[in-house]
């Protein structure tokens, strides 16, 4: 079939859609699934060129929530940027805090006491549960399940948010970690509450999987949709559950073994098709692993100070130099790259956002699929606009 003069710009990813020329395929329909769209998880825009319902070209457009996080970071002190990290990926404030605290501690060579390290692992795994439950809910909402799975997911999320609120003071914006430890110690009642929620979470997951995982409509909608090859995933810098769904074994908790993760034994689930169903199942299996980590961490949480006594809150001036710290956030590798010139404000404050980089292959996954699939593929990438646009 000769190219009918309608030049389809070859997508960078290399997966080509042959330009079909026959009378049925008339002119293409350029649709903007614009900044205001029910299922783009916030203000994200996709300029989609449709041939009937099949997607021929998809150009993502960002910037509608570019809140200048890095410029503000360079004009305020290190401590003042901590509450801003809550608003990066506003579903997982604890992991954002930890990534920023880790980077600054690496920059200043600041030790962290044992109990604080355990508390950080507990809170990060609780955030991972919260994020993956929300993802499953939003993914089902995109496939059209009128909110029921999302309501069950948010019912469990509220319990975890109550934990964060009673510990740090705010449901979503915890601002809990400091350079060299944590701000508030976890009381025994809080630890008992956390233990209760972790033990019951398994029961909720079983009921949730019973409702969703075996559902033929969901399997038909998501299996084989938006497949991603391991080589393209590695080259495109995909990290997190999306990468492990393609079968690449790369989990920073095992690779970097930061914090005290080396003391817990847990497994890393790997998929082999790399399609939307695998991405959903990997996150469900990761939730079960997080429950085992939480139970181990809650069991042997040591006593002791939660803040390094020599750590300074105000007037914190790390020596000139630079540091890149990264952790395994629920959406992938979230990293902070800081260049300090000795003054209380960082010279360069850079956030490495996992969902922004994971979107690089959105076009390659969506080519040839229908517009209904593009919505689910975007949902399975699990983006949060606060982090994508920074």
């Amino acid at each position, binding site marked *: 079939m000769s190219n009918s003069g309608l030049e389809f710009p070859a997508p960078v990813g290399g997966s080509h859609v042959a330009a079909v020329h026959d009378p049925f395929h008339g002119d293409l329909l350029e649709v903007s699934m614009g900044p205001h769209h029910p299922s783009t998880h916030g203000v994200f825009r996709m300029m989609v060129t*449709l041939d009937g*319902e099949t997607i021929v070209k998809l150009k993502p457009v960002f910037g509608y929530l570019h809140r200048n996080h890095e410029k503000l970071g360079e004009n305020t002190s290190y401590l003042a940027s901590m509450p801003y990290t809550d608003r990066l990926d506003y579903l997982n404030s604890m992991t954002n805090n930890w990534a920023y605290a880790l980077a600054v501690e690496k920059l200043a060579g600041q030790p962290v006491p044992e109990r604080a390290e355990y508390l950080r692992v507990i809170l990060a795994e609780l955030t991972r549960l919260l994020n993956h439950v929300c993802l499953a809910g939003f993914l089902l909402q995109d496939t059209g399940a009128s909110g*029921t799975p999302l309501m069950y997911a948010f019912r469990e999320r509220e319990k975890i948010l109550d934990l964060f609120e009673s510990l740090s003071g705010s449901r979503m914006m915890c601002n809990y970690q400091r350079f060299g430890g944590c701000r508030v110690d976890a009381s025994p009642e809080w630890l008992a509450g956390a233990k209760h929620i972790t033990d019951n979470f398994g029961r909720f997951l079983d009921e949730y999987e019973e409702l969703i995982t075996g559902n033929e409509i969901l399997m*038909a*909608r998501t299996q084989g949709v938006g497949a991603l090859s391991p080589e393209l995933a590695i080259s495109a810098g995909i990290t997190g559950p999306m990468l492990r769904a393609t079968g690449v*074994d790369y989990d920073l908790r095992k690779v970097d073994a930061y914090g005290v993760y080396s003391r817990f034994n847990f497994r*890393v*689930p790997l998929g082999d098709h790399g399609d939307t169903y695998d991405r959903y199942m990997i996150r469900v299996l990761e939730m079960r692993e997080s429950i085992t980590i939480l139970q181990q961490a809650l069991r042997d949480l040591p006593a002791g100070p939660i803040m390094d006594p020599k750590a300074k809150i105000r007037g914190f001036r790390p020596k000139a130099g630079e540091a890149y710290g990264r952790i395994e956030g629920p959406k992938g590798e979230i990293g902070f790259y800081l260049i300090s010139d000795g003054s209380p404000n960082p010279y360069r404050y850079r956030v490495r956002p996992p969902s922004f980089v994971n979107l690089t292959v959105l076009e390659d996954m969506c080519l040839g699929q229908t*517009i209904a699939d593009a919505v689910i593929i975007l949902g399975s990438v699990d983006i949060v606009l606060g982090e994508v646009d920074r």
Partner: protein
Amino acid sequence: MNAMPGIFAAATGADSLLERWPILFRDTVAGFFPAPLQWLVGSLISILAIVAIFGGVFAALTLLERKMLGRVQNRPGPNRTGPFGLLQPIADGIKMLTKEDIVPRSADHLLHFLAPVALLAFSILTFAVIPFGRNLVPLELDAAVLYFFAAGAATELAIFMAGWASRNKFSLLAAMRALAQLISYELPLLLSFVPIIMLAGTLSMTGIIDQQAGWNFGFIPKWYIFTPWGFAAFAIFLVAALAESNRSPFDLPEAESELIAGHLTEYSGFKYALFFMAEYFGMIALSGMAITLFLGGWRAPLPFLEFIPSYLWFGAKLLGLLLLFIWIRGTFPRLRMDQLTRLAWKFLVPLALFNLGTAAFWSLTSGWSGPLQLARWGVAIALVVVPFVLLGRGLSRGVAPRTYRFA
């Protein structure tokens, strides 16, 4: 002593007062008018009755849907407007009435205005032939079933008119989807009631209901749903009815998550309310049809329950079916367009055709009795289940739960 059953009989028999009062009322009112006008006044009264009752049922249905969806999702649903939220539909109605009606400049004004009107008109037309009670049939047609599906089929035109007229890319996509979906589900809908016409031998609704009179073994009513081919036909009819009334999991034209609000994107205020009303009327009409064909219309399920008036039985069965629709809406995600049409053409139509065979076998072997009766049921059930399993395996070939390795 025997007077007691008399009164009881009077109150319960086919011609008890409870049964005949609507007809008495209509005839007395029509009586005031000169003879040539009487049939006109009579039909006007029944039209008014249908529109009033089912307008109220529509309002109650919106509230029932929101409260039932709430119960599915662990929340109580609207309960602050009036006691237990009963005035919520009235509040919605008032707000919709007093809303500004925006017509986009580039829209085709005539079609944009006609679409909701046409959709509502065709939906109400189908109510003319549904028997709501023993003698509560608005229009006694002997080809009633044919009329019902003829009127029902016209709604596709109205939805396409709405999608096309609003000159909006998303509603254009929705209009294309609506056409493909409604036409491809018209076939299983029609094929699923052909065996009933075959066995009942008549196209008129009252005739079909009369065929389902009586009980075997004293308490199992002779409804068509309690026969193997009848149950299969009922299942196909239900799935096709879901698709015809654009209900989840087949609400592709009005798919919130993909096409904003589908063909309704450019409608605001009262026109949007008309679309809402037409969708619910379509749902009520199809449920009424399912009740008449499979669940014995207004017949009571058990002999000693005959004293309850027939239209209450019709109401109860209607409520049951509507709750089933809402329950399904609260649970299932949405199908994709190609899966939807593949389900219709490669699964439902072949199954419906097989069902014709089983119904034919069923009617030919009606004479078997004793041990042959068991054989008859066994073969009939096999004729239903085997194609279902084979076609089902073909449909879900690439789709299966997976196991995962751990690193």
